[in-house]
C-alpha cells in the first residue's frame, strides 16, 4: 500500500490546497536552488 503523500500548499486565487503532482514538480524546480541573491547576501554577511 502506498504511503499518503503530503505536498506543499498552493494558493490559487486565494483558495488554499495541496499541490498536484505537476504543480509540486514545478515548485521543486523553482525553489530547488537558493537564489543568486541569497548566495550573494550570505557572502555579504560572511565579509562583515
Amino acid at each position: 500500500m502506498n504511503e499518503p503523500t503530503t505536498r506543499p500548499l498552493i494558493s490559487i486565487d486565494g483558495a488554499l490546497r495541496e499541490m498536484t503532482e505537476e504543480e509540486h514538480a514545478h515548485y521543486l524546480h523553482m525553489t530547488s536552488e537558493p537564489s543568486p541573491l541569497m548566495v550573494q547576501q550570505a557572502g555579504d554577511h560572511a565579509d562583515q
Partner: protein
Amino acid sequence: MTFPSFNVSEVLTASDMNAIGLWLVRTQTIPAGASSVVVSSVFSANFNNYKIVVSGVGSNVGGHSIKMQLNNSTGNTYNIGGVYGTFGSASVLGYGPAVTDSWTDVLPLDTTETAGTIELYSPFLTRRTLMSSFGVRSGAVSPAWYWFHGQDTSTNSSTGFTFFSIAGGSTFTGGTIRVYGYRN
C-alpha cells in the same frame, strides 16, 4: 463636478469616470501556509501596464525573497538586476544574475513584515514584458531593501503570475496582493 472630489448623489459622467487613471483589478489575500501563490486572470486587453502592491507579507523563514513567474512565460527569458542594501549600512550593492526562468528576487521576504511594489509593462501584449520593483523587509533576521528592474524577452501574452517563497520548503505566513491597471 470638481474632479477628483465627488459629492454625494452627484451624477458620475463617462468623462469623469474615464479620467480615473488607476483601476483596482484584484485584491487577493495570501493564505498562511502557501508555498506558492497563483494570481490568475488579472492581465487583459483592458490595460497595458500594471502596478502590483504587496503588503503585510511574511514568511516562516527569514532573510530571503519572492520569486515571480508570468503564467505563459516559463522559459529562460528573464533577467533582473539592480541594487540592494541592508539597514544600518551605507553600502549599495549591485545584483545582476544570469538569465533564468523567472524574476528570482523580485521582492524581499522575511519573518516579520515585507512590502513592495512591482511595476509591470505589457504582460498581456505580445511583446517583451518589462518590470521595475522596489521593496523592503523589516524582519528580525535580515532587514533590507531591493530596487530592481527586469525584462522578460518572451513575447507570450500572460494573464497572471505566480509568487514563490524562494527558500526551499518555506511558506508565506500571510499578506495581501493588490493588482491595479493603469488606464491606457
